[in-house]
């Protein structure tokens, strides 16, 4: 439950701040929430990975599926892709990667000061 809660918080906080702040704010969000809510290293990495990855995937998918135009399809060849949907995947992977790294950094930051009794058991 704690893991799910953390993912939801990462998604929510990242979404709100990303509306105005630069893209890398999502790394900070994943970092902060993992610094505040203790859990194991793998758990922390996955919380950021899933949180940001999902957020970016869903946001990109909504635009991709709702657009009247075909910008995404036209950009795909620039990324050596055949179809626009590939860019949704790329976007999700990129978000997941930086989110995961942010989460893991947050976890290790917390460990500098606090020793959590729990190990990674909350999935």
């Amino acid at each position, binding site marked *: 439950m704690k893991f799910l809660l953390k993912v939801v918080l990462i998604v929510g906080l990242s979404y709100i701040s990303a509306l105005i702040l630069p893209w890398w704010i999502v790394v900070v969000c994943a970092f902060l929430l993992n610094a505040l809510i203790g859990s194991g290293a793998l758990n922390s990495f996955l919380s950021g990975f899933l949180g940001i990855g999902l957020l*970016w995937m869903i946001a990109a998918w909504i635009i991709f599926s709702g657009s009247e*135009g075909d910008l995404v399809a036209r950009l795909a060849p*620039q990324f050596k892709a055949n179809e626009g949907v590939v860019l949704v995947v790329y976007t999700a992977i990129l978000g997941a990667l*930086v989110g995961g790294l942010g989460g893991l950094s947050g976890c290790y930051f917390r460990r500098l000061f606090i020793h959590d009794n729990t190990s990674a058991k909350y999935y």
Partner: protein
Amino acid sequence: MKVIRFLLVSIITIAVTVGLNVKLFDKIPPLGAFLEPFGGFWQNANDEISSLESIIDINSLQNPVTIHYDQHLIPSITAENEPDLYFAQGFVTARHRLWQMEMQTRVAAGRLSEIFGESLLEVDRINRRKGLAYGAKNALKSAKEDTALFQLLQRYADGVNAYIGSLGKGDLPLEYKMLDYEPELWSPYKSMLLLKYMADMLSGYETDLENTNILKIWGKDTFDLLFPDRNIGDKPIIPTNHQWDFEPMTVPEADDNYIDALVSSVYNKPDPGNGSNNWVVGPDKTADGAPILANDMHLPLNLPSIWFLLKLNTPQHQVFGASIPGSMGVIAGFNDSIAWGMTNAKRDVIDWYKINFRDKKKNEYQYGNQWLKTQKVVEKFEIRAEEPFYDTVVYTHYGPIVYDENYPSSSNLEGYAMKWIAHEPSNEQKTFYLLNNGNNYQDYQQAIAYYQCPAQNFVFAASNKDIAIHVQGKFPLKWPQQGKYLLNGSNPLHEWQSYIPFEHNPGSLNPESGHLSSANQYPVDSLYPYYIYDAYYEDFRNRRIHEQLEAMQNIEVQDMMNLQQDVFNKKAELSLPKMLNRLDSNTLAGRSIEVYQTLKNWDYMTSLNKAAPAYYEIWWKKLYNLLWDEFTNDTLPLRQPEAINTIRFLDAENFAFADVVGTPQKENLDDLLRQSFASMLDSISTWEETETQEISWGGLKSTAIQHLLKIPSFSIQDAGVAGYRNIVNANSENHGASIRIIVQMSNPVKGWVIYPGGQSGTPGSKYYDNLIAPWAQGDYLPVSLAQPTTDENILFTQTLNP
């Protein structure tokens, strides 16, 4: 241990994040910023309409402004007064075309390498050396003297800047995100740079230095034979036997002691095919007695298009037409009283002066029996990811020394100064402002009197049934042949002494023939009292248009549309019979007989489904290059004779230039025709093998419409449009009818317009290239000055509130 673990992971995190935030490689945007769905390219994939706000608060407006977009995203802007109107024009134009308008001014300012890096430094150097920014600064000075107009220009800039200021996260146009930079604020100076961008495109082509080399190598007789000032058979813009009702000025004393020089290199010049067609038919020629005006402008075809359609309304005036993003008002269009359009009025308004410096310091140069001081301008070029580059340009009273030992190559040890009308103070913006608000012929005359460069043939029609055309620009008063070759900067007699008064420029009002037309041809007959020269006057479209208009009666709008779509190949009509006549058809066999017969039976229509235009064009090009092989040289700038002068010699006997220099035998024209015909057949076989289909004009010729960044998926590789160079429907490989306008001066005035592009500058938008298909098929959008009355015609309404 914990500390090391933390540091290691956080350093990796920061490194990855920073790496994704900057542009690491050429052609690859900063990936994190670019892919993020809330600010990256995804935001540009949102729909055009859903991302428009219906109400926007703008403090500096005096009254509310309403903007209705129609179903093609053409805005109709309604304001209570002109300052608000032009503010809104700037705002709306920037909303759809910001990146393009800024990029075009960057070209003129020679500031592309700031964005693209060293690869574009050479382009920047040309434009700085040519002094486009110098001309824009001079134009700005005269614009400022006209305080009322300058205030409006400033409001246009304010409107652009209000849009730039309103950009939230994710709103930046796509190309900025791809190239990783941000827009600069707009200013009236940038509008002037845009005018110079157009001046360069339209008046920048000349061959004075190539002429100098040809004169030196072959002598004056050969030059005059191959490159006559005017060609027989062309129909001048002003109908022949016009009575010139003015006392001509005295032409300055001639001094034809030309500089005896070989010029080793020249810069790349704009396409001489940048031209246009326009014509107007009077009340006696049309079916319902209302004049009809037609205009199509031939420019490089790009996306976003150089044109943006709009309607501008105040309680006093309504005007519809084509604007150029970055320039205030409508450039070509109509209001309820008048319609106007332009073609390029070719004239040699660039001359070159060889400068004799006192010494290597270049602080002084000879002029008559005195020494004049130079001015040195150090141009600094910011280059992305590199150290800046510096270039010193020496200015004389003629203008900038474009060519010297530093440019374009070190082999050029002389200094050549450029004298160009586009450098002089001028107020072209005033012409368009007055035309937008004009009511009659007198207003039109008053408006175009402000117009200097690039010279244009302004065609005109009024609802009172007047029709007119004027060749308008600022033209130096030259002695015969002055400036056709390199001039001597030390000789005051070689300098331009004065200018032809505007009232002496050629014009015609309501001629007997009932029609007027221009297609970049020689403007007048031999009775005009002043010397006129250009390296490239048009020889084919003008004849076809003139013939057609002459023959037509009871003209309907559809006839004018058909004429804009006309694909009759006048060049082929004049040349092909000569070519076929001299070809010995008895020696032909197999496929070549078939090709010969097809050409013989061709009706000269350059339609996509025909094979004959493909045979002809290939054959012509091969013949042309074989014939004029003397005039291509890797180490010396030269020019080849024009097509019309090639045709002149096709039935000549013992023509010296027929010999191909690189071969041991001595060829004559019959040999060239035979060789080029055989070589054409080879090309066709090769083409058909590669393409695995039979050749046709539509298969051979493609007309590409490229995005300004040349990204293939943002471009149309083949619009599938008929026509070619020298044909009324002038669509060649990447050049052609950039817009087509037709206006009928009925009551109310009606218009039809189409251009190969779309109103939106965002690649992939529904409105990015939606007009290309109708353009290629010859369809038009009907337009009028009426306000949309039903919501059906309105896509979206936006209100700008004070």
